[in-house]
């Protein structure tokens, strides 16, 4: 038996994450270079994928011709109005469901039934219901953001710590105070997490919304490029949407950090 002893072996440490931001950039760059190389050498047929440099050039033209903003601004407006409508209605209904047994019993099955309905199937009806002007675009985006927001909101209300509510009751706070000062801030993290998804869906629905008589808009631009089989423009449009999605998600991240700085 040695009296010196041996060092205790290390066996922890797995399953933790180091942050390696640069890997993400490397992966993006590698994919782009691969596509560029493939399309240049002809390994990838021009029918399959546009050349990244051509997409960039298309994007440059779009920008310098001023068309970029002509397309972007109406789309942003539609997103803004539609998502604001859908999300605020969704949060409202979600709260009602979370707070009142009767509303819950009545509306939860309805929301569950509406959720899997594809919005594009209803396009012809949206024309009749909301017209072919901005109304139907707002409505489509609002409709798409509404259901996930409702579900996220009432789950968030359900998840508010019951002991906090009981505390409020035990101090004789009135019902409305409890809702405003305890339930609302307590549900906020869940609502914001839900908004992340709802807004991604709103962006996805932009294309569907702009199927309805939109002359300008990123969705309309993509649709036209698709129908003309113009892959460069199609990809330029898709990249814009993708960047938009990443930006929206980042903005929510900032709001979360601001609004929820009380979390650990």
């Amino acid at each position, binding site marked *: 038996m040695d009296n010196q002893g041996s060092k205790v072996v290390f066996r922890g440490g797995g399953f933790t994450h180091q942050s390696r931001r640069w890997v993400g950039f490397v992966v993006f760059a590698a994919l782009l270079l691969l596509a560029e190389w493939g399309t240049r050498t002809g390994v990838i047929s021009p029918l399959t994928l546009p050349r990244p440099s051509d997409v960039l050039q298309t994007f440059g033209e779009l920008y310098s011709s001023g068309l970029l903003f002509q397309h972007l601004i109406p789309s942003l407006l539609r997103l803004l109005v539609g998502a604001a409508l859908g999300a605020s209605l969704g949060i409202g209904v979600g709260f009602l469901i979370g707070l009142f047994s009767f509303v819950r019993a009545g509306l939860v099955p309805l929301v569950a039934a509406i959720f899997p309905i594809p919005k594009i199937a209803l396009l012809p009806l949206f024309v009749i219901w909301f017209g072919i002007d901005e109304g139907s675009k707002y409505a489509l985006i609002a409709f798409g953001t509404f259901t996930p927001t409702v579900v996220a909101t009432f789950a968030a209300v359900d998840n508010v710590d019951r002991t906090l509510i009981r505390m409020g009751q035990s101090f*004789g706070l009135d019902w409305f105070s409890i809702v405003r000062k305890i339930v609302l*801030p307590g549900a906020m993290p869940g609502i914001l997490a839900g908004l992340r998804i709802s807004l991604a869906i709103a962006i996805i629905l932009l294309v569907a919304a702009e199927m309805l008589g939109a002359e300008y808009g990123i969705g309309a631009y993509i649709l036209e490029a698709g129908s003309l089989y113009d892959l460069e423009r199609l990809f330029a449009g898709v990249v814009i949407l993708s960047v938009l999605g990443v930006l929206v998600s980042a903005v929510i991240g900032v709001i979360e950090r601001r609004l929820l700085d009380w979390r650990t």
Partner: protein
Amino acid sequence: MELRLAGVGHSYAGREVLRDIDLKVPEGEIVCIVGPSGCGKSTLLRMMGGLEQPARGEVLQVGQPPQGCLNPLTFIFQDFALLPWRSVAGNVSLVLEDHPIGRDEARAMVADVLGRTRLTEFADALPRQLSGGMKQRVAIARALVVRPAVLLMDEPLSALDSQTRELLMEDLVGLWTRQPFTAVYVTHNLAEAVRLGHRIVVLSRRPGELREVVSLDKPLADRGYGDADLEVTQKHLWELMRAEAAAADAELLRG
């Protein structure tokens, strides 16, 4: 003001939890309730505070609450129940906001209780910046600010480590000595019961029945950490409960 329970009993979904409890909580005294897990201590306390309605019997408040009392029956919860998004001062002032109190007066009241619980310099801290002991001091401050007639405490110290627990007990004794309050104090911890209780109520295992009420005459301020005479009572209580506690555990799976 004092509380009186007469023949109180309760069942949840047909399972009897409490049976036939007669109890009096006299003004200015701390009544400790001990008993094995699941015997209905929390249920009993909730009934005293009006958060639950007894199925049988009744809970009465006798006499008027003191002048200026905003919430006669006030809880202190085991897990503090602080709003994590409000500062210490904000958590305390929360319970004043629904009362017609001027802004300045409210601020003065908050400052006063924060002083009494030695939290003045933490007034702007958020709960996540506080240790467990300080969080519970905030909860105590919040309870004191409404000038309660009776404090209802459900294992207020059991989420804390034993050193912090010790320090907070001294705080409670200090608060009571300066200005005696009425309180019902539910705990698992017999050491706490003998340190803080004027009377100690022992409940049997579920369905909780009154087993024994032990009175302790030694003044709170004179009781210390590990006093020999308190140990005697504590040992007596432990003998009473030991078998119950083991049996309650074994019943769990079948219950």
